[in-house]
């Protein structure tokens, strides 16, 4: 048996040990590969994708690659951690550190090679599904057909072989031997608890509380200024939360014998404190990564809703038209198009009069005109008495910014003074800060500075044809006609790729956070098997075993995620303060979906973990 044979057999005959590391490497390759299948798709690299989107895709691929590097590095080091005893044994038999290094290097290259191949093959299998998903998210005109992604294969293969090479070199270089006795006793000695100091515990609470308070208080552009300091505060605070506060709490609970000596608590808590250092590090990583995923996806989703809500509010009508010289002809054409598309619509028309006031142009509408448009979109009509003036504000057009106080009367240049008495919120007319006067008063107004003819249609039948009608009209009358629905469609179309990339990266982050947890759990699986075997001999019922394992897994899976959810909720609240737009629903949806996925993941992992332990214990 040559040394190379030994290294090879060590992997080939020990598949179970390497499985977790291999699978996560393969998963990483698959993620990168599917993404590049998508990025290199011929339908997307054509004229449809402008250069900025293509660049965005490249940046995203770069982010995934860099992240893969750290993810595989982490998986690798936690995998090596669990093999300390094996290295100790090999060293006792005279293996030199140099040989161990070259063994680790060879093993890594073998695993890396097969993980890359496996990831590409698996990626090909899932490619169609990914392309279908992309098609739906992206709103692409031509379909994303399956293709043989030779470019993506080459790119993935080369970049991951390079990646595994560097990681293998790096890991075998930094592999420290330590004392032989520590290697051999590695699994019996705790890595110790991080030191808990009251000062740092208080600091953790202070940093988190302060960060949250700032995030809640600041509004508008201040949010951007406060973002960096708050992020830093919360990251440090989270680290201290897991290394200090958790140590503090677990110590207190463990030392309280009336609690920790009850039933299976002792097994659970001794374990928690024993693995505190590893747990704290994993929890911190998972919490931060998940927060990034939640915030990124929440932001993208929230931003999209915010934009489409803005368009929808600004354009409540199916079609609107501002007249120009060919008004009659255009209106006839619009009506004809509606008929062609089998649509029926209610219509309203008004001449909008603009007056000059203090260098500004002010729109004044008579009550009957306003009421017609209000009725058209189902808003309440108003009743303006003679001598009264209503000020109308549109929420959409001010982008939710709080309106400046405008309580003073407005004096038109012609000398007429309008004293507003009531402020309305309405989207009936595509304008903000305009005035409604009674029909009688309207007649008395002097000649306007400007007149615009405004038409609005509200579809009552055949609404499903709005998009095709709009497309025709936009081609014929690109400047005069506006359709809110078509604008939203256009926005989604342009926003699709960004959304897709954001979703993809967010999901990659989230899934890898899950893998970190999985690794944490499975590093200790052998120790757990041995431990429960011993306890089972003394008499541990299946129910009790399940209870301990459930609690153990639940703490691992939910402690960091709940922190991340709270962080994410705060971040999204800050975001809604930036836009002055309430994102509560969107945040709840995004965070809720993630929580649900995590719960499902928890149940799946618990099932398998419990089964494995039970098989070892033979209950």
């Amino acid at each position, binding site marked *: 048996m040559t040394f190379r044979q030994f290294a090879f057999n060590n992997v080939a005959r020990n598949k179970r040990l390497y499985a977790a590391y291999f699978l996560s490497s393969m998963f990483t390759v698959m993620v990168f590969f599917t993404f590049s299948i998508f990025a290199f798709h011929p339908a997307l690299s054509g004229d449809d994708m402008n250069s900025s989107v293509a660049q965005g895709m490249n940046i995203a691929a770069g982010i995934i690659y860099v992240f893969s590097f750290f993810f595989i590095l982490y998986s690798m080091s936690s995998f090596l951690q669990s093999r300390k005893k094996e290295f100790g044994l090999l060293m006792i038999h005279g293996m030199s550190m140099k040989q161990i290094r070259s063994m680790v290097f060879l093993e890594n290259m073998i695993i890396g090679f097969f993980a890359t191949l496996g990831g590409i093959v698996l990626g090909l299998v899932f490619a169609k599904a990914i392309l279908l998903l992309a098609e739906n998210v992206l709103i692409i005109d031509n379909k994303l057909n399956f293709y043989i992604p030779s470019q993506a294969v080459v790119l993935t293969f080369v970049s991951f072989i390079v990646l595994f090479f560097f990681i293998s070199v790096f890991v075998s270089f930094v592999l420290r031997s330590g004392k032989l006795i520590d290697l051999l006793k590695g699994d019996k000695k705790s890595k110790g608890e991080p030191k808990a100091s009251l000062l740092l515990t208080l600091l953790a609470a202070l940093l988190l509380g302060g960060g949250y308070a700032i995030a809640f208080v600041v509004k508008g552009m201040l949010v951007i200024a406060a973002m960096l300091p708050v992020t830093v505060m919360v990251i440090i605070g989270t680290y201290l939360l897991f290394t200090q506060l958790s140590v503090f709490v677990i110590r207190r609970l463990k030392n309280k014998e009336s609690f920790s000596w009850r039933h299976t608590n002792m097994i659970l808590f001794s374990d928690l404190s024993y693995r505190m250092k590893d747990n704290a590090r994993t929890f911190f990583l998972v919490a931060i990564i998940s927060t990034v995923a939640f915030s990124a996806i929440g932001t993208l989703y929230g931003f999209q809703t915010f934009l489409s809500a803005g368009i929808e509010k600004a354009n409540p009508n199916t079609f609107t038209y501002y007249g120009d010289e060919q008004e009659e002809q255009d209106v006839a054409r619009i009506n004809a198009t509606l008929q062609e598309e089998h649509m029926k619509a209610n219509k309203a028309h008004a001449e909008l009069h603009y007056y000059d006031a203090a260098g500004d142009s002010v729109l004044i509408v008579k009550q009957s005109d306003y009421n017609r448009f209000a009725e058209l979109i189902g808003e309440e009509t108003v009743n303006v008495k003679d001598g009264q003036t209503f000020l109308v504000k549109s929420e959409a057009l001010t982008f939710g910014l709080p309106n400046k106080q405008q309580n003073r009367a407005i004096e038109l240049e012609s000398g007429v003074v309008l004293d507003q008495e009531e402020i309305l919120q309405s989207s009936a007319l595509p304008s903000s800060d305009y005035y409604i006067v009674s029909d009688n008063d309207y007649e008395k107004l002097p000649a306007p500075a400007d007149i615009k003819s405004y038409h609005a249609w509200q579809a009552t039948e055949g609404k499903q044809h709005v998009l095709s009608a709009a497309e025709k009209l936009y081609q014929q009358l690109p400047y005069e006609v506006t359709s809110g629905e078509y604008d939203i469609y256009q926005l989604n179309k342009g926003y699709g790729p960004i959304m897709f990339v954001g979703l993809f990266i967010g999901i990659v982050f989230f899934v890898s956070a899950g893998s970190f947890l999985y690794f944490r759990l499975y590093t200790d699986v052998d120790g757990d098997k041995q431990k429960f075997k011993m306890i089972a*001999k003394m*008499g541990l019922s299946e129910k009790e075993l399940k209870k301990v394992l459930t609690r153990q897994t639940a703490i691992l899976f939910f402690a960091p995620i709940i922190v991340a959810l709270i962080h994410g909720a705060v971040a999204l609240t800050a975001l809604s303060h930036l836009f002055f737009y309430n994102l509560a629903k969107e945040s709840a949806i995004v965070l809720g979906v993630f929580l649900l996925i995590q719960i499902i993941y928890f149940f799946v992992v618990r099932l398998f973990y419990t089964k494995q332990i039970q098989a070892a214990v033979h209950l």
Partner: protein
Amino acid sequence: MLHVKQVSKVYEGKVTYNALTDIDLTIQQGEFVGVMGPSGSGKTTLLNIIATIDEPTAGDVLINGNNPHRLKKEELAKFRRRELGFVFQDFNLLHTLTVEENIVLPLTLDGGKVAEMKQKAYDIAGKLGITGIMKKRTYEISGGQAQRTAIARAMIHSPKLLLADEPTGNLDSKASKDVMEMLESINRNERTTMMLVTHDALAASYCNRVVFIQDGRLYTEIRRGDNRQAFFQKIIDTLALLGGHANDLSSIRVQ
């Protein structure tokens, strides 16, 4: 107290292997019985069957008239926890727990008052001379201390039957002697029924009776009289008949 009736154990596999064949064994209340035999004779299989860790292929095991193998899993766990105590060759202590926590573990699983548990732990630790190491972790103590901790853990709930599998296998002669003397005194003072599987003739000589097994069958049994040294010699002689050499140990040592 313990009745093993016609117990057989067959391991199915490519080649069927009869680990135990028609074993009959009765242990009286308060008796201290050793089981000896060459490697592969089925000693540990027998112990595991009595300990309910393994199932017999045929035959019954009755402990105080009850057959624990008929119990449901949940009840079986409770039965082991309350009625049986175990001591293993490799101690089987949990390294995440301190010595004290290891000792009280069977009690905490069953639920109880902390003060009571602590009292019991310190009582038994006092008897075994390990009060000084109660707060230590398992990797900080010696093998002898670890085995005494394991005995304390096996005894803390006053089990009806204490089962020991090679308890001296990992210990030197001094520590072995300490451990065996402790078991003997517990047997004498607490009237705990004990069964011990061992290779060590010296350890076996502390028993009231030693049963020999060969190739899965009962071979013979010998009883101890007043003199432990004479009993030890008898054990050596029987082992020699079982395939060892009588002069493995010089009889000159026996005075």
